[in-house]
């Protein structure tokens, strides 16, 4: 987790358009490091997005999701000033979260 998550939530029509960029190696367990050793599996498995405290998106990922994963989604009926939070959990049990306010 080199850098914190980045998030942007902006009203587009009657929905909040949310874009999240997470920082994570998303190792498949197939890659070899410089020493020729297999780098173990390590990826984000679960992401939960909430809107004003209510879960709107429940995501399950495999190691097939790209390194530094991107997630885009939309929440209908959201308004500027509403709160969006993102929580992820990975295979090592590590977690990270971020929240933001929907911009107009």
């Amino acid at each position, binding site marked *: 987790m080199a850098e914190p998550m980045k998030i942007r939530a902006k009203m587009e029509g009657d929905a909040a358009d949310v874009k999240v960029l997470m920082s994570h190696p998303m190792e498949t367990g197939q890659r070899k490091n410089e020493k020729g050793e297999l780098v173990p599996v390590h990826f984000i498995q679960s992401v939960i997005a909430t809107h004003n405290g209510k879960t*709107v998106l*429940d*995501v399950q990922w495999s190691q*097939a999701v*790209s390194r530094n994963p991107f997630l885009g*989604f939309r929440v209908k009926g959201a308004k500027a000033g509403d709160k969006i939070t993102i929580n992820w959990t990975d295979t090592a049990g590590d977690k990270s979260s971020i929240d933001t306010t929907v911009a107009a």
Partner: protein
Amino acid sequence: MNTFRRSIIKLLLASSAVTAASLLGVRTAFAAVWNKTGFESKSSSDALKTLGVSAPTASRDIQITAPEIAENGAQVPITVTSKIPNTQNISIVVDKNPFPLSSTFEFSSGAESYVSTRLKMGQTSNVIAVIKADGKYYTATKEVKVTIGGCGG
């Protein structure tokens, strides 16, 4: 017990497990249990079975946006939009990946049936979107050509 009876019982157990899991997933504030069997399935059909998908209907109301040719198989942008009413979830399967099921997205409380993400693709493959709406399954497919595979190793 003969093999036929055994396979029926297996089928009943599997479908009740899926029902129990989906009931748990929808109503709690916690994440649904990670679908280990599905994500570790080596074929698209096995993976879809773990999601409870049976006889999906091909639908034109599912739009998959992805490059015709992905230059970098490690970062292939994929967007799936479902115009089917009461879409509950979207699953994305990359047919030729070593483990085809890549991701599942469950919607609630106003989320639009739309997701955008980036996936690793090992080689040119069909990207299959499976949508569950009102308890029924729908599917759409798009072929994405990959010049340099992105599964690592």
